[in-house]
């Protein structure tokens, strides 16, 4: 049986995060990536939940330049299970795709900005070397007019093609900042049909692909980890 993961929940405050976690459990997710601030002191992960929902700590970095990105990564990498970078400029996008410490690449949702910074072939080629994933947030497509949504869909279709061409993992998340924007795992997967992605592949994008990423990073964060396959005993 598949374990479904919504790797991107962005609750603004603690009350909202509790209701979003309850909703995630009700929708059938086994694990969620809860976006936290660098100042947040692990409010959720220490407490065991009754519904046994697994919570992965995630941070979304929004660096203005490559130097800011590398210094942020140095500070926070060992504190979070998932590190995502919102690529606002091309130099940041290139640096993020090159860096092994980055797990997920995000791109702007505004059409004008997306034309400048997108997941093109060069970006995909760099990301394939570092096992960095390309993320699609369904919330980027919701509540948009038909014109904007259609443009975004066509851009995302090309980006998914680039990811496939270079074997870059693709992750589908809700990107929800409120419970009403959350969707069930099979609904998230079904929406990928709009980008020309098949059923099994899209189900992997909400289950196996993000799950592998979380497990890999948890192993790295364990004490005694040296490098892949090597542990200090």
């Amino acid at each position: 049986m598949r374990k479904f993961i919504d790797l991107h929940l962005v609750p603004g405050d603690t009350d909202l995060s509790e209701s979003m976690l309850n909703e995630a459990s009700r929708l059938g997710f086994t694990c969620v990536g809860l976006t936290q601030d660098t100042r947040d002191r692990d409010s959720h992960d220490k407490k065991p939940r009754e519904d046994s929902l697994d919570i992965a700590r995630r941070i979304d970095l929004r660096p203005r330049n490559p130097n800011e990105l590398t210094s942020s990564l140095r500070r926070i990498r060992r504190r979070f299970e998932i590190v995502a970078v919102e690529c606002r400029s091309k130099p940041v996008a290139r640096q993020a795709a090159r860096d092994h410490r980055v797990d997920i690449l995000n791109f702007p949702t505004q059409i004008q900005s997306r034309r400048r910074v997108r997941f093109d072939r060069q970006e995909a080629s760099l990301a394939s070397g570092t096992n960095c994933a390309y993320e699609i947030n369904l919330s980027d497509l919701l509540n948009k007019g038909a014109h904007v949504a259609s443009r975004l869909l066509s851009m995302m279709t090309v980006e998914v093609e680039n990811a496939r061409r270079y074997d870059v993992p693709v992750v589908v998340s809700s990107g929800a900042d409120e419970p009403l924007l959350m969707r069930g795992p099979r609904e998230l997967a079904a929406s990928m049909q709009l980008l020309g992605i098949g059923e099994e592949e899209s189900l992997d994008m909400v289950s196996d692909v993000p799950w592998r990423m979380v497990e890999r990073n948890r192993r790295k964060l364990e004490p005694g980890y040296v490098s892949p396959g090597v542990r200090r005993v």
Partner: protein
Amino acid sequence: MPVYRKRRRYLKFWIRGDEGFSVKEAADAIQRSVLSLYGVQGLSTIEPNLIDFDEDSQSGILRCNHDHLREMRASLAFITSIGESAAAIHVDKVSGTIRSLKKGGETA
């Protein structure tokens, strides 16, 4: 002589929203979402049909064409409002018959 019988899928769903919605509002929202994502041709092939809706529990049963279940799910995922207020529709279970759905059909 063999008779062509349409295969269907039945989806048990529930609505999450700030207020309660009527049958008509729910049916309109579903139809509008299919229409905006897949157009008139999509609407004719997906064949969404609200079979049952309980206004108290805000849950119901929706029927669609067996071959277009993914399109139906995607259309439901894209619903962000019903009438004037924000809402979301979530699928609980999917089954090939209403009877097994009511008994507790499997998630498909």
